[in-house]
């Protein structure tokens, strides 16, 4: 038997070279990765949208929605059972069914959806009731300066200043991607705050409450920005979506 399989010093240190090579490759990828990512996403996007097997979407790449939930499995709410309450510092508290909301003036928006973790879905079509319309219906009390949102998942909360909430591009969304908002996307009704990062667009919206002060929501208690403008918060520099 040849001796060089026994002598521990025989041969070349290939293992160390492979290790250091990978480390170098990874470091290079970290520094130059943005360009690489854009190239790969662009190359894969046409395949990803037409792939009938769905296998390509398993690759961690590309401009598609990813589904996040902060609690355990969220019970589905039937469109018929759904209720949205509007209360807090208002003159006229309200309680609306999905049909009530659908009968109100609808606004359509087409905007990119930008997640604070980096993915961005271009040109998403949204439709629903302007939040300002619901606030006007309820009549904001003079003491109210902020709006707090609650979710029927029981945990997720969000907030906006009253001024932000009155913007034209803040919707109580009933439609998304050319259909009713699906359960996994936070349906039947979710918030859509166009100029801010995705976590502000609370899913499974069930309550709107006018408050004296901004009460930081679920992600904001976990160090994310309260005023979450896309491109100028959370230490990120994405193109604005507003």
């Amino acid at each position: 038997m040849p001796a060089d399989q026994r002598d521990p010093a025989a041969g070349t240190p290939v293992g160390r070279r492979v290790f250091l090579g990978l480390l170098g490759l990874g470091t290079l990828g970290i520094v130059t990765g943005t360009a690489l990512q854009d190239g790969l996403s662009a190359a894969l996007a046409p395949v990803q949208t037409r792939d009938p097997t769905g296998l390509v979407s398993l690759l961690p790449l590309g401009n598609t929605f990813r589904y996040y939930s902060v609690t355990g499995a969220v019970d589905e709410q039937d469109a018929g059972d759904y209720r949205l309450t509007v209360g807090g510092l208002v003159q006229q508290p309200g309680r609306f069914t999905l049909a009530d909301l659908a009968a109100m003036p609808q606004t359509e928006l087409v905007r990119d959806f930008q997640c604070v973790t980096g993915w961005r879905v271009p040109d998403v079509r949204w439709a629903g009731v302007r939040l300002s319309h619901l606030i006007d219906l309820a009549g904001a009390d003079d003491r109210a300066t902020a709006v707090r949102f609650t979710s029927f998942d029981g945990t997720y909360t969000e907030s906006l200043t009253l001024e932000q909430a009155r913007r034209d591009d803040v919707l109580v969304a009933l439609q998304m991607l050319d259909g009713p908002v699906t359960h996994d996307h936070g349906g039947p009704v979710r918030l859509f705050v166009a100029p801010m990062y995705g976590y502000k667009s609370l899913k499974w919206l069930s309550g709107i409450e006018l408050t004296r002060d901004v009460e930081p929501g679920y992600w904001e208690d976990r160090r994310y920005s309260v005023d979450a403008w896309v491109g100028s918060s959370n230490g990120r520099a994405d193109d604005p979506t507003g």
Partner: protein
Amino acid sequence: MTRPADAPPAEPEFARFGRPARWVHGLVGVLVLVCIATAAVLYNSSLQVLVGHRRAVELVHVWAGWALPVPLLAGLLSAGYRAELRRLDRFTRHDWRWLRSRTRRDGRIPVGKFNAGQKLNGSLSAGAIAVLLLSGAFMQATDLAPLAWRTGATLMHDWFALALGLLVLGHLSFALRDPIAMRSLRTGTVPRRWARHEHPAWAEELEDR
């Protein structure tokens, strides 16, 4: 009272892995599996919808990840473990032949304590883990690095995780086909016959001592 029949003479066993190597292997194995399971929930939309609790899953993933190098580095305190690493590191001409050969398991190419596939798996896995730790650090320290680096770090983390996942799958599938090898990760020893068949150069080395 009759005496029980004499047990057949036990087959001699060779010491394959010392206690430090077995502990490092076990701890790293558990931590890697925790990382893979939590990563699957964080990444796969269907699993995320099923499990939810994004923040809790994320915390488990991050802490299991940070714990991963601890046993790997603690093992370096043991001389036996360092000797295993040296064997994994060194490639001889036989290793290159073994990798190229289609009949690599017919016994004609001398195989030492680790075959070339095991050596390659070791260094690829170690390199991937190092990149995952580095990119994970950049993803977590959101204040330290420019955004472009964080995007790059995310991309590297994703692809090296995919690669490590494939390496782990390959490792498991080879292991499951060899119960004796798996047992030796618990007991530390292998029958001499197994050693002669799978790692003849190593068996010869032990017999010569």
